[in-house]
């Protein structure tokens, strides 16, 4: 099958039920989507499908045919830069394992809502687990990033 990943056409000849996560990680060597639970419960594998945050561990590759798949590596600079700069300024990560997924959820939120309220942030981020408990810094970083997302 043909998939559109970060703006490039790629071929995938494996089982069409293969979750997108493993297509990205094991076939395309894109490692920012992380494996956490395999069941859509933790958000470490979050990527964008047509700009929406999805859990790539429980989305079959076939569901992504003809759609735009975006990982942190391919996030447009106008959204990636303010988010990553805010994440650095607030010094969010501890172990850091969940943070690519966190930033992808934040990017989907800020793409559709330039000035999210606390409740909107919580709703958008509640599917992303951080075992280190960096939630207060994630919230601060989203608010900081919101100020500079054009």
């Amino acid at each position, binding site marked *: 099958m043909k998939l559109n990943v970060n703006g490039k056409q790629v071929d995938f000849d494996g089982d069409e039920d293969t979750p997108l996560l493993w297509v990205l990680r094991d076939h395309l060597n894109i490692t920012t989507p992380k494996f956490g639970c395999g069941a859509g419960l933790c958000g470490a594998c979050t990527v964008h499908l047509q700009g929406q945050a999805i859990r790539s561990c429980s989305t079959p590759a076939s569901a992504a045919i003809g759609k735009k798949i975006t990982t942190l590596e391919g996030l447009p600079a106008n959204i990636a830069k303010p988010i990553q700069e805010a994440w*650095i300024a607030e010094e969010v990560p501890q172990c850091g394992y969940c943070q690519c997924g966190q930033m992808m959820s934040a990017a989907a939120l800020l793409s559709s809502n330039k000035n999210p309220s606390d409740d909107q*942030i919580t709703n958008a981020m*509640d599917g992303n687990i951080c075992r280190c408990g960096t939630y207060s810094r994630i919230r601060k970083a989203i608010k900081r990033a919101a100020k500079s997302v054009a």
Partner: protein
Amino acid sequence: MDRRSFIKSSSLVGSTLVIGFSTVNQEVSANPSELSNPWLTIHADNTVNVLSARSEMGQDVYTTMVMLIAEELDYPIQKIKVDIAPTDPKFYINELLGGQITGGSTSVREAWKKLRVVGASAKELLVAAAAQKWNVDPKDCSASNGVVTCKGKSATYGELAGLASTIKPSGNPKLKDPSQYKYIGKPVARLDTPAKVRGTAKYGIDVRQPNMLVASLAQCPVIGGKVKSFDDSKARAVKGVDSIVQIPDGIAVLAKDFYTAKKARDLIQIQWDIPNNPAMVNMSSIEESHRKASTAKGAVVGKQGNFEDPIQGTAKQLTAEYKMPYAAHATLEPVNCAASVANGECHVWGPIQFQQGATGAAVAASGLPESQVHIHTTFLGGGYGRKLELDFISQAVAISKASGKPVHLIWTREDDMTHDFYRPFSLHQLSGGLDSSGKLVGLSSKMTSQSVTARAFPPFVVNGNDPFMNEGSANLTYDIKNWRAENVIHDPGTRVGYWRAVSNNLNTFAIESFIDELAKEAGKDPVKFRLEMLDKQPRAQKVLKAATEKAGWGLKRSNNHFLGVAQTECYGAYIAVVAEVSMNGDIPKVHKLTCAVDPGIAIRPDQVKAQIESGLLLGYSTAMKNKITFNNGAVEQSNFNNYPLLRMSETPQIDITILASGDAPSGMGEVGVPLAAPAIANAIASATGKRIRSLPFLA
């Protein structure tokens, strides 16, 4: 037991060798234009590399340990390139634990003097080199920010490095006075943040090697079970399966991707040979057997006055029993390890907390000599003690050896949840005696629990005393006239491991809850009641007063919120926490955790804050919701649906006050964890009058 024999005889370690190490002796430099020792290399172009010899799992050793070197070397810290150290216990032993190992909140405590001496020694040599070069007295030279200057002359460290490498270090360099610190105690940006934010930080799961296959391993649902027979015909028929191999722990499928390996693995039919008598391993029998074991006399690990019968003759007496559930580490990065056994060499790449043990495990599984085994540590996506274990390392090496291929073993979340080394179940029997004025004059606390150390480091258990079971009891801060702390080791047939803050979590929940029960019995305010017993503990008093003041202890509240307090000493830090809780029927809601901590010297204050916050939230979320249960020997929880982790919407407000003192730095990675549970229990009791003596709160 000296540490060397401890390491050599430990079952967790395998066969490895520790030899002595002096941090100030220089390695012979391979390149005479560089000044090099095992921790630090100064290149001729004035760039500096520092090795981080402790595993980075979020606790920030990657920055804090480098700060110790940068401070005394006096070199711009943000310009230092940090690499993860190789395995070499000769240089990188953690003296507090006796091996190349990261745990027990020991990294910075152990490195505090050692790494400052490394930095200062290098600076001493650079100054000596400058003095020699310019023919001046070293006393007239000064070194700062990577440059040595003297009477109008200057040279970068890099320019002096070659000459410096020919000079013998004194071994006793002068360390800075704290008033001269540029980094220690100051805001310093975390060195691994950019890589973690850009997604370039490599965790174990991100290891890529040429031709490496992914392996998924079917293990017996009852930990320790072995394969009796199996039929893999259906699995072999799955397109994309490369090979299927049997190893001691189960059957592994190798494929190009994880999905294929896992799918095929699930099609293997396996008959298991199950050890012991798993029908006996269920929660009611586990609890019953602990209670039965608790009638024995245990090891006395703390005592004062009439410790044989501390409550004898007291005016008022109280007894209570507490228990704590099993808990899983549930690191967000599941257990995984990459290995390659080929051409007489064994390479292991992974999220490893115990490099020296990993070497032993790889030697045993590969059959190769230690000199041919190479351990490569990546970033860890959480550790909490799980990645001290060696099961996954042995497995990966065994799979590579059996298949003849480089493999990356990746456990599913379900594998990880059901094959952990769990924080043990514990039973706590407490009794206290008050005098006629309501002062606590007698206390005995007895913990009955499984010993992690008896499995992992058996020689460290001496006369029934596992030192890691004493945490939170033997180091009681309260001065009580007659006191005994006692442990009974009981093995109910489960597999247990060290879990962030270890027995502090267990003992502190029981003791700090019971102290509140006694305060109530005495008719005293819980803070005053505690302060009466802390005369000799100024640091404990200070944090208790600070946290309660900040939380508004004793002020009238109009919002149906109630406060509970707890305090302890943990890995050298003093900490107090106040929980603010409201009740919706029987369901507690935690609104805020207010904490004051004295970490000694706060090396990087923002790290202290981040670690305390992380610890408080782990303690809180585990206490609210988490328990591991066994049924017929198998763990019943499988993923985050039935072992739920904290989410943003459940996160209470956190308020942390750091009261740094001039004392030596304490360990920060774990100290935040133990107190949330007792503080919340005490707040619930204050709200409802009901005492909760077992966890989780939302059972």
